[in-house]
Each structure stands twice: as structure tokens, then as C-alpha cells.
């Protein structure tokens, strides 16, 4: 630790009024605004998940009715996907770190950045209203014809919420893309950029190109439901499977909106705590772009049993296997980065190890589901639920917490308790596996998803899963408590507690409102740890 005093004026204490937060154009404050809303959504989504897990501890439907259960898992999905996973890393960590990491004073369009937060909040309020007026029961996927002609829950209100929120995502993507093109500090060439920035660039591409499609799709759903347009109704010449095509044209790339930024976080943290440059930098950078592009070509693997053409299914199966290649490139390169590294066992690194293990399982089980024959057996079973939770929680959320722990000293200027953070990471890792590994077995044995009752022989595995979920909840609560505690009682972090190389670590913690006293001039790559360590020695 180089210094122990906080900078006199920083972005947190420069102004104190509520208005100075609500009308701020500072990317760092906007990141914290996002952190607030996303944390509320995460809590809500967690409550709904708890309802689901309590119901599933017994085979009978004794805690909630079938109808309530449908609403619980739907609202869990909607809260977590649209209001936690998609914004968590780009809008919180990306917003905070991106301008700092490229040596800029702010993003390219600070007002649009604030606008994107307001749009996000308005979308969230619509969805919240839908939840309060009785919720929605279609599943987060809004499949037709149930959503258009049968469901009597708040489909419209939720749809409007999702529609509005999409624009927030598009605005953030646009802002980041322009920022990366136009705002890099002198000397910050494309191949000197941190891999987190590459990942955000690839994510922005997906956000801009895919999100409009979900807006259009939800719009069509609304027209069909309100006015009976017939786009998805076979009686009027439509096709319900068309909805699935359009929905997944966004929602599969959206998985990459969720996972690419955490992958960027992993590259940063793994380099810092192995004290080595990331192995095969350019391969990792380009694999982000490859994932972003290939991610658009695989959506129909969600439709294998929906009655699509078997020839089309073969094409999509092949392409789905292909998208695993760039993900594997990343995983192998991270592992190679560890090789002969001086591994430093700090909390962010523990989260990264959690990510590596869980993402590997999540990715490989994805290949099971991309196989045409096996998917017939596994489709809509708990195997699928387990698979995507390994990607979204084991991958995206673990990566988010790795990043939050890595940049927390920069964001707040305070250190949290490393042992508490390590304990939380272990609790989450164990709790997660206990929750979701039994679900692989349940699914393989044939337990379908989205039912509130099940056959008696599945109870043991379901009780294990619910017990794991409680552990997971304790882990998350622990994170909240020691992070909040650190704000008030934590030790001052100093500018660069991890002795990391990124530009964000060359300024004060918390940074001054303008980020840097002078615009930095970049003369070397992003991960010159070896050079630096030698210099120190």
C-alpha cells in the first residue's frame, strides 16, 4: 500500500446533495446509481427464487398454488435476466472502469449515460408495478400462444417494462462503443487496451445489434395480444414458433451480453493475481469478438423440439458447437496464464477460481444440449435449468463479484476484510454446487422444469438443492454486510492496493471527479507485470 490517506476531493465527496447524484453526469456516480437499482432487483429475484425452492422441498404443492408458482419462477427470471445479469457488469463495473481504464475523463456522451439509467429505472418501475399488481405467469420467455391468448396475468405491463429497459441497454452499448473508438488516451492503441475493454466492446456490439429485435418482438406480442394481429396465430396465417425465433435472436446473444463482460473481468483479475500478462492476449481479445458474432448464429438450439425443420436444426446444432471454440480458447488461455504465475490468494482471485470451475461445467453441459438427439431427452428438464444457472450464476455472477471485489478499493477507497470475502466466495461456491448439481441429475432422470409438484423419488435431490440455495443466500448476505461495513470502517486502500498495471490504478482511490490530474500517456501493454515485478525486485 503506497498511501493511507484518501484524496481530499474525490467523486464521492465533491458534492453531497441528492440532486448532485440524481443529475450527475459523472460515469462513476452513474455506476453507483446502477449498483443501487441492480442490488434491489437482485434481492427481489432472490426472494422469488426462495419461494420456488421452498415449494420444491416437498413433492406436493403445499406452500403455494400452481398459479402462484408460475408467477414466482417467471418473476425470478425476469428480475434476474433483465435487471441484474444484463446490466450488472457493463452498467456498473463497465461504467465505472471503462473511462478510467482507457485514460479518459468520462464516457463519450455523459448525458446519454445518465439518460440510460433513467430509462432503466422507468423500465424497472413498470416491471415492478406488474409484480405488485399480481405478477406475470408466462415464464420469462413470454412464449406464444400462451402469452397472447391464454395468460390473464400482467403480460402487457411486464412487456412494456422489458421494452423500455432494452433502450437503456442500447444506449449504454452505443456510448461504450463510441468511447472506446474516440476517447482512448494517447498511446492507448487497440492492442494495448485491457481485455476488459475488449470484452465491453464486443458486448456493446451485441447490445446494439440484438436488443432492437427484442423490442420489436415484444411490440409484436403486444399487438397480437391487444389487437389480434395474427403474427403468431396459425388461424390467421401466423406461426407461434416465429415468436421463438425472434425472441431467441435477441435472448441467445443476450447470454453473451451477460457473460462477455465477466470474462473480461476474469482476464484482468487473473493477470493481476498471477503477476503475469494474460497468455495469448490477442487470441483472448479476438475470441470476445468471435463470441459476439457467433453468438448470433446459434439461437434455434432453443427450438429443437418446437417443431422446426430437422435440416435447420442440424445447421444450428453445428453452429452451436462452433461457438464453444472461442469460449474454450479463453478458458485454456486463462489456465495457461496461471501456469508458472506467482499466484496471490486474495479474495478476487478466489472468485475467479470459482468462475473457472463453474463456467467450465456450464459450458460443457451446453454442448450436451446442442446435440440434437440428447436435447430431445433433456429439453425442458432440470438439466437445462442447471446448465444455464452454471453459466449465469456460476459464470456471470461469480465474474461480477470477482470484479466488484477487485475494483471495490478503487470505487470506495476502502478495503474490505479479505478473510470474510474469501469465506463468502467459498460459501457461494459450495452453496451453488449444492443447489444446482443435483438439478443436473434431476433433469437427467426426467424431472421437468416449471412444475410445482413432482414424483416422490426426486425429493432427496430437491431437498439438497433447497439446502444449497439457503447457503447461497447466506453467502450473498455476507458479501453485502462486509462490503457495507468496509465503507464505514474499512482501512484506506491507497491508489493501488493490488499493485496492478491498469490505468485506473494510477489515479487516486476513490478517483477525483476528473479521473486523472493529467491525461496519462500510455507507453506499454496492459499487463506488463513481469517487467514491473523485476523492477521492484
Amino acid at each position, binding site marked *: 500500500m503506497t498511501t493511507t490517506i484518501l484524496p481530499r476531493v474525490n467523486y464521492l465527496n465533491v458534492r453531497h446533495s441528492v440532486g448532485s447524484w440524481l443529475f450527475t453526469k459523472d460515469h462513476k456516480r452513474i455506476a453507483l446509481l446502477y449498483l443501487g437499482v441492480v442490488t434491489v432487483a437482485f434481492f427481489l429475484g432472490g426472494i422469488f427464487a426462495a419461494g420456488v425452492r421452498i415449494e420444491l422441498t416437498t413433492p406436493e404443492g403445499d406452500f403455494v398454488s400452481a398459479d402462484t408458482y408460475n408467477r414466482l419462477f417467471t418473476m425470478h427470471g425476469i428480475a434476474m435476466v433483465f435487471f441484474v445479469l444484463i446490466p450488472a457488469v457493463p452498467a456498473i463495473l463497465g461504467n465505472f472502469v471503462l473511462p478510467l481504464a482507457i485514460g479518459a475523463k468520462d464516457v463519450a456522451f455523459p448525458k446519454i449515460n445518465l439518460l440510460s439509467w433513467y430509462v432503466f429505472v422507468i423500465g424497472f418501475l413498470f416491471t415492478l408495478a406488474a409484480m405488485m399488481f399480481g405478477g406475470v405467469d408466462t415464464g420469462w420467455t413470454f412464449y406464444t400462444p400462451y402469452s397472447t391468448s391464454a395468460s390473464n396475468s400482467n403480460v402487457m405491463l411486464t412487456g412494456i417494462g422489458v421494452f423500455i429497459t432494452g433502450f437503456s441497454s442500447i444506449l449504454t452499448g452505443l456510448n461504450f462503443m463510441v468511447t472506446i473508438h474516440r476517447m482512448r488516451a494517447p498511446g492507448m492503441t487497440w492492442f494495448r487496451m485491457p481485455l476488459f475493454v475488449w470484452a465491453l466492446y464486443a458486448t456493446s456490439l451485441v447490445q446494439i*445489434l440484438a436488443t432492437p429485435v427484442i423490442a420489436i418482438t415484444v411490440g409484436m406480442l403486444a399487438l397480437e395480444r391487444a389487437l389480434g394481429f395474427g403474427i403468431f396465430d396459425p388461424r390467421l396465417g401466423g406461426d407461434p414458433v416465429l415468436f421463438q425465433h425472434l425472441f431467441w435472436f435477441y435472448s441467445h446473444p443476450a447470454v453473451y451480453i451477460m457473460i462477455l463482460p465477466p470474462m473480461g473481468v476474469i482476464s484482468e483479475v487473473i493477470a493481476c493475481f498471477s503477476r503475469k500478462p494474460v497468455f495469448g492476449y490477442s487470441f483472448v481479445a479476438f475470441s470476445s469478438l468471435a463470441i459476439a458474432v457467433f453468438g448470433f*448464429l446459434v439461437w*434455434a438450439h432453443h427450438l429443437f423440439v418446437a417443431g422446426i*425443420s430437422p*435440416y*435447420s436444426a442440424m*445447421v444450428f446444432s453445428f453452429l452451436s458447437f462452433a461457438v464453444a471454440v472461442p469460449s474454450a480458447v479463453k478458458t485454456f488461455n486463462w489456465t495457461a496464464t496461471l501456469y508458472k504465475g506467482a499466484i496471490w490468494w486474495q479474495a478476487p482471485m478466489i472468485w475467479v477460481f470459482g468462475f473457472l470451475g463453474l463456467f467450465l461445467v456450464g459450458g460443457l453441459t451446453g454442448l450436451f444440449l446442442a446435440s440434437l438427439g440428447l436435447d430431445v431427452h433433456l429439453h425442458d428438464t432440470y438439466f437445462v435449468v442447471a446448465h444455464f444457472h452454471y453459466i449465469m450464476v456460476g459464470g456471470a455472477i461469480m465474474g461480477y463479484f470477482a470484479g466488484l471485489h477487485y475494483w471495490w478499493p478503487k470505487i470506495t477507497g476502502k478495503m474490505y476484510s479479505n478473510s470474510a470475502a474469501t469465506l463468502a466466495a467459498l460459501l457461494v461456491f459450495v452453496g451453488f454446487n449444492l443447489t444446482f448439481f443435483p438439478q443436473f441429475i434431476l433433469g437427467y432422470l426426467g424431472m421437468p422444469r416449471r412444475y410445482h409438484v413432482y414424483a416422490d423419488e426426486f425429493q432427496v435431490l430437491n431437498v439438497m438443492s433447497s439446502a444449497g440455495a439457503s447457503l447461497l443466500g447466506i453467502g450473498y448476505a455476507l458479501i453485502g454486510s462486509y462490503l457495507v461495513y468496509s465503507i464505514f470502517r474499512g482501512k484506506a486502500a491507497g491508489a493501488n492496493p493490488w499493485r496492478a498495471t491498469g490505468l485506473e490504478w494510477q489515479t487516486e482511490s476513490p478517483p477525483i471527479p476528473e479521473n486523472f490530474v493529467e491525461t496519462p500517456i500510455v507507453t506499454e501493454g496492459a499487463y506488463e507485470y513481469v517487467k514491473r515485478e523485476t523492477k521492484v525486485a
Partner: protein
Amino acid sequence: MAGHISPKSTYYAIFGSLMVLTAVTVGVAFINLGVLNFPVALTIAVLKATLVILFFMHVKYSSRLTKLICGGAFFFLILLFGLTMTDYLSRGWFVSPGGTAAAGTQVTVGPPPEPAAAPAEARPEP
């Protein structure tokens, strides 16, 4: 992008072309071209959109990066339609041996055919 100023005559010419094309769209709507109705209308629409993008939106005078991003957007649109069509165009190719109406059902765009009055097998042979 910001630097280029087109002469007024360009804008008038493009506006004129758009008006003419609109008139053609309306005119064509009164002529039954059979299967060509839809493709002709779409071709005119694409032509008009291209004029707007190139001249009114100044893409013609923009940097190569802007052109690339514009082209990229269309590339992804083609992916959306093209890959979706791999399903719709090939659904009828496969007919299950048992003759079930599962994966091999032909999907037609438009109102479904009228159901037959009575099954053919049920009619008595003359």
C-alpha cells in the same frame, strides 16, 4: 460526416426520386403481378431506404468506419431473416415415415386451406 454539405439540388433530386417511387408503389398496387406483387413492393421499398440512408443520412460521404457499421447492421438483418428461413423453407422437406404431423408439417404463409368436406376414404366407391 459533419463536414460535407450537399448542394440543394441533390436533396431535391432525391426527394423527387422518393416521390416518384412512392407513386410507382401505389400504381403497382393496382396491377396484379401474381407472385411478383410482394417482391416488387419490397424492391421499391429497399431502393427508397437506400436513397435515404446514402444521401439524407450522409452515409455516402461518411468515413469507412460509418459505412462498415451501416453495412454490419444489414449483415445482421440478413442473418436474422436468412437463418430463420433455413427453418421455414426446409420444414416441408421431411415427412415422417408414419405420416405424423410432427416435425415435417408444411407451413404456409397465408390463410390455411379449407378443410375437406368429407374424408376421401369415407366416400363409397361407385
